Protein backbone atom coordinates (compact mmCIF):
# COMPACT_ATOMS: atom_id res chain seq x y z
CA UNK A 1 0.00 0.00 0.00
CA UNK A 2 1.45 3.34 -0.99
CA UNK A 3 1.90 6.09 1.55
CA UNK A 4 -0.96 8.25 0.16
CA UNK A 5 -3.67 5.67 0.59
CA UNK A 6 -3.02 5.08 4.28
CA UNK A 7 -5.57 7.17 6.07
CA UNK A 8 -4.42 8.31 9.50
CA UNK A 9 -6.58 6.81 12.24
CA UNK A 10 -9.10 9.10 13.82
CA UNK A 11 -8.72 10.13 17.42
CA UNK A 12 -11.75 9.46 19.60
CA UNK A 13 -12.58 10.68 23.10
CA UNK A 14 -15.50 9.68 25.29
CA UNK A 15 -16.12 11.63 28.47
CA UNK A 16 -18.76 11.58 31.18
CA UNK A 17 -20.05 14.61 33.00
CA UNK A 18 -23.00 14.23 35.39
CA UNK A 19 -23.97 10.81 34.11
CA UNK A 20 -24.70 7.31 35.31
CA UNK A 21 -22.16 5.59 33.06
CA UNK A 22 -24.81 4.01 30.86
CA UNK A 23 -23.79 6.08 27.84
CA UNK A 24 -20.18 4.87 28.09
CA UNK A 25 -21.49 1.35 28.35
CA UNK A 26 -23.65 1.91 25.27
CA UNK A 27 -20.42 2.48 23.33
CA UNK A 28 -19.21 -0.92 24.55
CA UNK A 29 -22.62 -2.33 23.64
CA UNK A 30 -21.67 -2.08 20.00
CA UNK A 31 -20.27 -5.57 20.72
CA UNK A 32 -18.03 -6.90 17.95
CA UNK A 33 -18.55 -3.66 16.01
CA UNK A 34 -16.37 -2.06 18.68
CA UNK A 35 -13.45 -3.75 16.90
CA UNK A 36 -14.39 -1.84 13.73
CA UNK A 37 -14.53 1.36 15.74
CA UNK A 38 -11.12 0.71 17.23
CA UNK A 39 -9.80 -0.23 13.79
CA UNK A 40 -10.88 3.16 12.45
CA UNK A 41 -10.19 5.27 15.51
CA UNK A 42 -7.80 5.36 18.43
CA UNK A 43 -9.47 6.16 21.71
CA UNK A 44 -7.25 8.80 23.28
CA UNK A 45 -9.37 9.59 26.33
CA UNK A 46 -12.10 7.45 27.84
CA UNK A 47 -12.23 7.39 31.62
CA UNK A 48 -14.43 4.29 31.89
CA UNK A 49 -11.99 2.20 29.84
CA UNK A 50 -8.57 3.83 29.93
CA UNK A 51 -6.21 5.46 32.37
CA UNK A 52 -5.60 8.87 30.83
CA UNK A 53 -5.24 11.87 33.11
CA UNK A 54 -6.83 15.28 32.62
CA UNK A 55 -3.39 16.83 32.27
CA UNK A 56 -2.69 14.51 29.33
CA UNK A 57 -5.74 15.96 27.61
CA UNK A 58 -4.57 19.47 28.50
CA UNK A 59 -1.25 18.70 26.77
CA UNK A 60 -2.90 17.60 23.52
CA UNK A 61 -2.75 20.16 20.69
CA UNK A 62 -5.98 22.08 20.01
CA UNK A 63 -8.40 20.36 17.61
CA UNK A 64 -6.34 17.19 17.71
CA UNK A 65 -9.25 14.95 18.74
CA UNK A 66 -11.44 14.18 15.73
CA UNK A 67 -14.57 13.12 17.60
CA UNK A 68 -15.58 13.57 21.22
CA UNK A 69 -18.69 11.93 22.61
CA UNK A 70 -19.56 13.96 25.70
CA UNK A 71 -22.18 12.27 27.79
CA UNK A 72 -23.69 13.56 30.99
CA UNK A 73 -24.92 16.98 32.00
CA UNK A 74 -22.80 19.80 33.39
CA UNK A 75 -23.36 19.82 37.12
CA UNK A 76 -20.18 21.12 38.68
CA UNK A 77 -17.00 23.01 37.97
CA UNK A 78 -15.15 19.84 36.97
CA UNK A 79 -17.77 18.98 34.31
CA UNK A 80 -17.59 22.55 33.04
CA UNK A 81 -13.80 22.56 32.89
CA UNK A 82 -13.78 19.29 30.93
CA UNK A 83 -16.53 20.48 28.59
CA UNK A 84 -14.50 23.59 27.76
CA UNK A 85 -11.26 21.65 27.49
CA UNK A 86 -12.74 19.01 25.18
CA UNK A 87 -14.37 21.69 23.05
CA UNK A 88 -10.98 23.28 22.60
CA UNK A 89 -9.26 19.98 21.77
CA UNK A 90 -11.96 18.48 19.52
CA UNK A 91 -12.91 18.95 15.90
CA UNK A 92 -16.38 17.49 16.41
CA UNK A 93 -18.04 17.63 19.81
CA UNK A 94 -21.13 15.49 20.17
CA UNK A 95 -23.60 15.80 23.03
CA UNK A 96 -24.12 12.10 23.51
CA UNK A 97 -27.21 10.91 25.34
CA UNK A 98 -30.16 12.61 27.02
CA UNK A 99 -28.15 14.27 29.81
CA UNK A 100 -25.73 16.07 27.52
CA UNK A 101 -28.57 16.82 25.10
CA UNK A 102 -31.23 18.27 27.43
CA UNK A 103 -30.14 17.58 30.99
CA UNK A 104 -31.54 14.10 31.41
CA UNK A 105 -32.39 12.48 34.72
CA UNK A 106 -29.81 14.54 36.69
CA UNK A 107 -31.66 17.57 35.29
CA UNK A 108 -34.61 16.78 37.55
CA UNK A 109 -32.49 18.41 40.25
CA UNK A 110 -33.54 21.71 38.66
CA UNK A 111 -36.83 21.33 40.53
CA UNK A 112 -34.81 22.23 43.63
CA UNK A 113 -32.02 24.57 44.61
CA UNK A 114 -28.58 23.43 45.66
CA UNK A 115 -29.32 24.39 49.26
CA UNK A 116 -32.46 22.25 49.32
CA UNK A 117 -30.56 19.30 47.85
CA UNK A 118 -27.72 19.61 50.35
CA UNK A 119 -30.14 19.92 53.23
CA UNK A 120 -31.98 16.78 52.15
CA UNK A 121 -28.89 14.74 51.32
CA UNK A 122 -26.66 15.68 54.24
CA UNK A 123 -29.16 16.38 57.02
CA UNK A 124 -32.69 15.18 56.48
CA UNK A 125 -32.45 11.73 54.93
CA UNK A 126 -33.67 9.06 57.30
CA UNK A 127 -30.33 7.27 57.39
CA UNK A 128 -28.25 10.39 58.08
CA UNK A 129 -26.83 11.38 61.44
CA UNK A 130 -25.07 14.69 61.04
CA UNK A 131 -25.31 16.60 64.28
CA UNK A 132 -22.41 18.90 63.33
CA UNK A 133 -24.09 19.86 60.04
CA UNK A 134 -21.06 18.87 57.99
CA UNK A 135 -21.51 19.55 54.30
CA UNK A 136 -18.95 19.19 51.50
CA UNK A 137 -16.91 22.34 50.99
CA UNK A 138 -15.01 23.10 47.80
CA UNK A 139 -11.89 23.87 49.78
CA UNK A 140 -10.85 22.48 53.14
CA UNK A 141 -7.62 23.26 54.89
CA UNK A 142 -6.29 20.71 57.32
CA UNK A 143 -2.96 20.38 59.10
CA UNK A 144 -1.44 18.38 56.25
CA UNK A 145 -2.47 20.84 53.54
CA UNK A 146 -5.56 21.89 51.63
CA UNK A 147 -8.06 19.68 49.80
CA UNK A 148 -10.08 20.80 46.84
CA UNK A 149 -13.18 19.28 45.29
CA UNK A 150 -15.27 20.61 42.41
CA UNK A 151 -17.93 23.25 43.13
CA UNK A 152 -21.47 21.98 42.64
CA UNK A 153 -23.59 24.49 40.70
CA UNK A 154 -27.08 25.43 41.72
CA UNK A 155 -28.29 24.23 38.32
CA UNK A 156 -27.82 21.31 35.98
CA UNK A 157 -26.93 22.43 32.44
CA UNK A 158 -27.15 20.63 29.14
CA UNK A 159 -23.84 20.73 27.28
CA UNK A 160 -24.92 23.37 24.76
CA UNK A 161 -25.54 25.94 27.49
CA UNK A 162 -21.85 25.75 28.37
CA UNK A 163 -20.02 25.24 25.04
CA UNK A 164 -20.88 25.06 21.33
CA UNK A 165 -22.02 21.60 20.33
CA UNK A 166 -21.73 20.17 16.79
CA UNK A 167 -24.19 17.30 16.99
CA UNK A 168 -26.66 15.75 19.36
CA UNK A 169 -27.28 12.04 19.72
CA UNK A 170 -30.28 11.61 22.01
CA UNK A 171 -31.25 8.60 24.07
CA UNK A 172 -30.93 7.18 27.54
CA UNK A 173 -28.70 5.59 26.46
CA UNK A 174 -28.51 6.13 22.68
CA UNK A 175 -29.11 2.96 20.70
CA UNK A 176 -25.72 1.51 19.85
CA UNK A 177 -26.76 0.82 16.23
CA UNK A 178 -27.39 4.50 15.71
CA UNK A 179 -23.97 5.35 17.16
CA UNK A 180 -22.35 3.09 14.57
CA UNK A 181 -24.24 4.86 11.79
CA UNK A 182 -23.05 8.25 13.03
CA UNK A 183 -19.54 7.00 13.60
CA UNK A 184 -19.39 5.58 10.07
CA UNK A 185 -20.54 8.94 8.71
CA UNK A 186 -17.74 10.69 10.61
CA UNK A 187 -15.12 8.19 9.44
CA UNK A 188 -16.13 8.40 5.80
CA UNK A 189 -16.78 12.13 6.08
CA UNK A 190 -20.05 11.79 4.17
CA UNK A 191 -23.68 12.06 5.07
CA UNK A 192 -23.23 14.34 8.06
CA UNK A 193 -25.93 17.00 8.33
CA UNK A 194 -25.16 20.65 9.14
CA UNK A 195 -23.70 21.36 12.57
CA UNK A 196 -26.28 21.71 15.31
CA UNK A 197 -28.40 18.83 14.04
CA UNK A 198 -29.71 15.92 15.99
CA UNK A 199 -28.19 12.80 14.45
CA UNK A 200 -28.80 9.10 14.99
CA UNK A 201 -32.55 9.66 15.33
CA UNK A 202 -35.59 10.40 13.18
CA UNK A 203 -37.37 13.70 12.55
CA UNK A 204 -40.81 12.41 13.37
CA UNK A 205 -42.29 11.21 16.62
CA UNK A 206 -42.29 7.76 18.12
CA UNK A 207 -46.02 7.42 17.37
CA UNK A 208 -45.06 7.40 13.72
CA UNK A 209 -43.26 4.10 14.18
CA UNK A 210 -45.38 2.63 16.93
CA UNK A 211 -47.34 -0.43 15.86
CA UNK A 212 -50.10 -0.24 18.47
CA UNK A 213 -53.67 0.34 17.32
CA UNK A 214 -54.59 4.02 17.26
CA UNK A 215 -57.82 5.83 16.57
CA UNK A 216 -58.08 9.42 15.38
CA UNK A 217 -60.33 10.56 18.15
CA UNK A 218 -58.56 10.07 21.44
CA UNK A 219 -60.72 10.74 24.50
CA UNK A 220 -59.56 10.15 28.05
CA UNK A 221 -61.86 10.18 31.08
CA UNK A 222 -59.17 9.39 33.60
CA UNK A 223 -55.42 8.92 33.52
CA UNK A 224 -53.77 5.88 35.04
CA UNK A 225 -50.25 5.24 36.16
CA UNK A 226 -48.89 2.14 34.41
CA UNK A 227 -49.32 -0.10 37.46
CA UNK A 228 -52.97 0.88 37.94
CA UNK A 229 -54.23 -0.75 34.78
CA UNK A 230 -54.00 -4.03 32.89
CA UNK A 231 -52.46 -3.20 29.51
CA UNK A 232 -54.19 -4.99 26.63
CA UNK A 233 -50.86 -5.06 24.75
CA UNK A 234 -52.28 -3.76 21.48
CA UNK A 235 -54.12 -0.44 21.94
CA UNK A 236 -52.30 2.90 22.07
CA UNK A 237 -51.29 3.56 25.68
CA UNK A 238 -52.83 7.01 25.72
CA UNK A 239 -56.18 5.65 24.58
CA UNK A 240 -56.02 3.31 27.56
CA UNK A 241 -55.39 6.33 29.77
CA UNK A 242 -51.71 5.68 30.42
CA UNK A 243 -49.53 8.67 29.60
CA UNK A 244 -47.01 7.75 26.95
CA UNK A 245 -44.54 10.41 25.81
CA UNK A 246 -44.64 9.13 22.23
CA UNK A 247 -46.47 12.16 20.74
CA UNK A 248 -43.76 14.53 22.02
CA UNK A 249 -40.72 12.32 21.53
CA UNK A 250 -38.42 11.90 18.59
CA UNK A 251 -38.37 8.46 17.06
CA UNK A 252 -35.17 6.56 16.47
CA UNK A 253 -34.98 4.21 19.41
CA UNK A 254 -37.06 1.60 17.62
CA UNK A 255 -40.00 2.11 20.03
CA UNK A 256 -38.39 -0.39 22.36
CA UNK A 257 -40.21 0.60 25.52
CA UNK A 258 -43.63 0.31 23.90
CA UNK A 259 -42.62 -2.97 22.27
CA UNK A 260 -41.81 -4.12 25.79
CA UNK A 261 -45.30 -3.02 26.89
CA UNK A 262 -44.09 0.01 28.77
CA UNK A 263 -45.09 3.57 27.80
CA UNK A 264 -42.49 5.83 26.19
CA UNK A 265 -40.76 8.04 28.75
CA UNK A 266 -39.38 10.57 26.31
CA UNK A 267 -35.62 10.02 26.48
CA UNK A 268 -35.08 10.94 22.80
CA UNK A 269 -36.25 14.51 23.39
CA UNK A 270 -38.66 16.56 21.28
CA UNK A 271 -39.14 15.90 17.55
CA UNK A 272 -37.73 18.38 15.06
CA UNK A 273 -39.68 21.63 15.03
CA UNK A 274 -40.63 21.44 18.72
CA UNK A 275 -38.30 23.01 21.25
CA UNK A 276 -39.98 21.91 24.43
CA UNK A 277 -41.19 18.32 24.83
CA UNK A 278 -43.24 18.99 27.95
CA UNK A 279 -45.15 21.87 26.38
CA UNK A 280 -45.82 19.74 23.33
CA UNK A 281 -47.02 16.93 25.54
CA UNK A 282 -49.34 19.26 27.47
CA UNK A 283 -50.78 20.43 24.16
CA UNK A 284 -51.34 16.84 23.07
CA UNK A 285 -52.69 15.46 26.34
CA UNK A 286 -54.75 18.55 27.14
CA UNK A 287 -56.93 18.22 24.08
CA UNK A 288 -57.60 14.53 24.79
CA UNK A 289 -59.26 15.24 28.12
CA UNK A 290 -62.86 14.18 27.64
CA UNK A 291 -64.78 16.90 29.48
CA UNK A 292 -65.99 20.41 28.84
CA UNK A 293 -66.86 21.58 32.27
CA UNK A 294 -64.09 23.10 34.40
CA UNK A 295 -64.80 20.97 37.48
CA UNK A 296 -64.74 17.74 35.53
CA UNK A 297 -61.56 18.78 33.72
CA UNK A 298 -59.93 19.47 37.08
CA UNK A 299 -60.88 16.01 38.30
CA UNK A 300 -59.30 14.37 35.27
CA UNK A 301 -56.16 16.48 35.62
CA UNK A 302 -55.96 15.44 39.28
CA UNK A 303 -55.16 11.95 37.98
CA UNK A 304 -51.96 13.27 36.40
CA UNK A 305 -50.02 13.31 39.62
CA UNK A 306 -46.85 15.14 38.62
CA UNK A 307 -47.08 16.71 35.16
CA UNK A 308 -43.81 18.61 35.45
CA UNK A 309 -41.77 15.57 36.45
CA UNK A 310 -43.52 13.29 33.98
CA UNK A 311 -43.39 15.52 30.92
CA UNK A 312 -39.87 16.82 31.57
CA UNK A 313 -38.32 13.63 32.89
CA UNK A 314 -35.33 13.89 30.54
CA UNK A 315 -35.43 17.50 29.45
CA UNK A 316 -35.99 20.02 32.23
CA UNK A 317 -32.72 21.99 31.95
CA UNK A 318 -33.02 22.18 28.16
CA UNK A 319 -36.68 23.21 28.22
CA UNK A 320 -38.05 26.74 27.90
CA UNK A 321 -38.20 27.48 31.61
CA UNK A 322 -35.12 25.39 32.39
CA UNK A 323 -35.68 25.15 36.12
CA UNK A 324 -38.10 25.82 38.88
CA UNK A 325 -38.40 29.56 39.49
CA UNK A 326 -36.70 30.57 42.71
Amino acid at each position, binding site marked *: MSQETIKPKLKLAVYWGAACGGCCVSVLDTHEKLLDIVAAADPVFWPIAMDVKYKDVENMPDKSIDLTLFNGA*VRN*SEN*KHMAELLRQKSKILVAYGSCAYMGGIPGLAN*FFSKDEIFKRAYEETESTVNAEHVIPLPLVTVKEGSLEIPVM*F*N*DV*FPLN*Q*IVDVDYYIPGCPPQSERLIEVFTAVVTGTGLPPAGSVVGANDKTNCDECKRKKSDNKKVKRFYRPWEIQDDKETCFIEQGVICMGPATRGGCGVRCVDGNSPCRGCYGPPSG*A*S*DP*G*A*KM*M*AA*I*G*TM*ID*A*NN*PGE*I*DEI*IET*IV*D*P*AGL*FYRFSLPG*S*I*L*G*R*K*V*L
Partner: protein
Amino acid sequence: MNFRPTIVAFLCNWCAYTGADLAGTSRLHYAPNIRIIRIMCSGRIEPTFILKAFKEGADGVLVCGCHPGDCHYQEGNYKCLRRFKLLEKFVSQMGIEKERLKLEWISASEGKQFAELVNEMTGTLLQIGPGKVQKTLEFEHLKTK
Protein backbone atom coordinates in the same frame (compact mmCIF):
# COMPACT_ATOMS: atom_id res chain seq x y z
CA MET B 1 -38.21 51.55 41.52
CA ASN B 2 -41.41 52.03 39.63
CA PHE B 3 -42.62 48.59 38.63
CA ARG B 4 -44.82 48.47 35.55
CA PRO B 5 -46.07 44.99 34.89
CA THR B 6 -45.99 43.63 31.36
CA ILE B 7 -48.92 41.43 30.42
CA VAL B 8 -48.84 39.40 27.24
CA ALA B 9 -52.40 38.75 26.09
CA PHE B 10 -53.46 36.19 23.53
CA LEU B 11 -56.87 37.19 22.20
CA CYS B 12 -58.96 35.20 19.77
CA ASN B 13 -59.87 36.96 16.57
CA TRP B 14 -63.61 36.47 16.76
CA CYS B 15 -64.64 37.45 20.28
CA ALA B 16 -61.90 38.65 22.60
CA TYR B 17 -59.94 40.73 20.09
CA THR B 18 -63.13 42.34 18.88
CA GLY B 19 -64.06 42.96 22.51
CA ALA B 20 -60.70 44.64 23.11
CA ASP B 21 -61.25 46.64 19.95
CA LEU B 22 -64.62 47.74 21.29
CA ALA B 23 -62.93 48.92 24.48
CA GLY B 24 -60.74 51.08 22.27
CA THR B 25 -63.46 52.45 19.98
CA SER B 26 -65.60 53.16 23.05
CA ARG B 27 -62.65 55.22 24.31
CA LEU B 28 -62.49 53.39 27.60
CA HIS B 29 -59.46 54.15 29.72
CA TYR B 30 -57.58 51.12 30.99
CA ALA B 31 -54.10 50.13 32.08
CA PRO B 32 -51.57 50.32 29.22
CA ASN B 33 -49.63 47.30 30.49
CA ILE B 34 -51.02 44.85 28.01
CA ARG B 35 -49.32 43.60 24.82
CA ILE B 36 -51.94 42.00 22.64
CA ILE B 37 -51.24 39.14 20.26
CA ARG B 38 -54.15 38.27 18.03
CA ILE B 39 -54.69 34.62 17.21
CA MET B 40 -57.46 33.04 15.20
CA CYS B 41 -58.80 30.92 18.05
CA SER B 42 -57.94 30.34 21.69
CA GLY B 43 -57.66 26.66 20.71
CA ARG B 44 -54.54 27.64 18.77
CA ILE B 45 -52.71 28.50 21.98
CA GLU B 46 -49.92 26.10 22.70
CA PRO B 47 -48.32 25.91 26.13
CA THR B 48 -45.07 26.80 24.35
CA PHE B 49 -46.40 30.32 23.60
CA ILE B 50 -47.20 30.98 27.22
CA LEU B 51 -43.96 29.55 28.59
CA LYS B 52 -42.01 31.55 26.05
CA ALA B 53 -43.81 34.72 27.08
CA PHE B 54 -42.76 34.13 30.68
CA LYS B 55 -39.21 33.40 29.63
CA GLU B 56 -39.03 36.60 27.57
CA GLY B 57 -39.99 38.59 30.63
CA ALA B 58 -43.78 38.76 30.83
CA ASP B 59 -44.99 39.39 34.37
CA GLY B 60 -48.37 37.92 33.49
CA VAL B 61 -50.04 36.12 30.63
CA LEU B 62 -53.69 36.56 29.77
CA VAL B 63 -55.60 34.29 27.44
CA CYS B 64 -59.06 35.30 26.23
CA GLY B 65 -61.46 33.41 24.01
CA CYS B 66 -65.15 33.23 23.19
CA HIS B 67 -67.60 32.19 25.87
CA PRO B 68 -68.22 28.42 26.07
CA GLY B 69 -70.59 27.44 23.28
CA ASP B 70 -69.78 30.55 21.23
CA CYS B 71 -66.54 29.43 19.60
CA HIS B 72 -66.34 30.33 15.94
CA TYR B 73 -64.80 26.90 15.35
CA GLN B 74 -67.30 25.05 17.55
CA GLU B 75 -65.02 23.83 20.33
CA GLY B 76 -61.65 25.57 20.14
CA ASN B 77 -62.23 27.32 23.44
CA TYR B 78 -62.93 24.00 25.20
CA LYS B 79 -59.63 22.66 23.88
CA CYS B 80 -58.00 25.83 25.17
CA LEU B 81 -59.62 25.37 28.58
CA ARG B 82 -58.33 21.78 28.93
CA ARG B 83 -54.79 22.67 27.92
CA PHE B 84 -54.90 25.73 30.11
CA LYS B 85 -55.94 23.78 33.21
CA LEU B 86 -53.10 21.32 32.68
CA LEU B 87 -50.63 24.11 32.05
CA GLU B 88 -51.84 25.89 35.19
CA LYS B 89 -50.93 22.85 37.26
CA PHE B 90 -47.51 22.65 35.62
CA VAL B 91 -46.82 26.35 36.02
CA SER B 92 -47.58 26.24 39.74
CA GLN B 93 -45.20 23.28 40.11
CA MET B 94 -42.55 25.44 38.45
CA GLY B 95 -42.92 28.10 41.12
CA ILE B 96 -44.79 30.69 39.07
CA GLU B 97 -47.65 32.24 41.05
CA LYS B 98 -51.05 31.25 39.71
CA GLU B 99 -52.17 34.89 39.55
CA ARG B 100 -49.74 35.45 36.70
CA LEU B 101 -51.67 33.22 34.34
CA LYS B 102 -55.28 33.94 33.59
CA LEU B 103 -57.93 32.63 31.23
CA GLU B 104 -61.12 34.61 30.71
CA TRP B 105 -63.96 34.53 28.22
CA ILE B 106 -64.68 37.88 26.54
CA SER B 107 -67.35 38.28 23.89
CA ALA B 108 -67.25 40.80 21.08
CA SER B 109 -69.64 43.07 22.97
CA GLU B 110 -67.75 43.00 26.28
CA GLY B 111 -65.38 45.92 25.80
CA LYS B 112 -66.10 47.19 29.29
CA GLN B 113 -65.46 43.81 30.86
CA PHE B 114 -62.18 43.57 28.96
CA ALA B 115 -61.00 46.94 30.25
CA GLU B 116 -61.93 45.94 33.80
CA LEU B 117 -60.15 42.62 33.41
CA VAL B 118 -56.92 44.31 32.32
CA ASN B 119 -57.14 46.81 35.17
CA GLU B 120 -57.77 44.08 37.67
CA MET B 121 -54.93 41.88 36.45
CA THR B 122 -52.52 44.83 36.36
CA GLY B 123 -53.51 45.62 39.94
CA THR B 124 -52.85 42.05 41.07
CA LEU B 125 -49.46 41.99 39.36
CA LEU B 126 -48.52 45.30 40.96
CA GLN B 127 -49.20 43.68 44.30
CA ILE B 128 -47.25 40.47 43.75
CA GLY B 129 -44.34 42.19 41.98
CA PRO B 130 -42.20 41.40 38.94
CA GLY B 131 -42.00 37.91 37.46
CA LYS B 132 -38.90 35.97 38.45
CA VAL B 133 -38.32 33.64 35.50
CA GLN B 134 -35.70 35.74 33.73
CA LYS B 135 -34.00 36.74 36.92
CA THR B 136 -33.68 33.13 38.05
CA LEU B 137 -32.11 32.06 34.78
CA GLU B 138 -29.67 34.98 34.60
CA PHE B 139 -28.66 34.50 38.18
CA GLU B 140 -27.94 30.81 37.68
CA HIS B 141 -25.79 31.42 34.66
CA LEU B 142 -23.70 33.96 36.47
CA LYS B 143 -23.02 31.41 39.15
CA THR B 144 -21.02 29.14 36.88
CA LYS B 145 -18.65 31.91 35.88
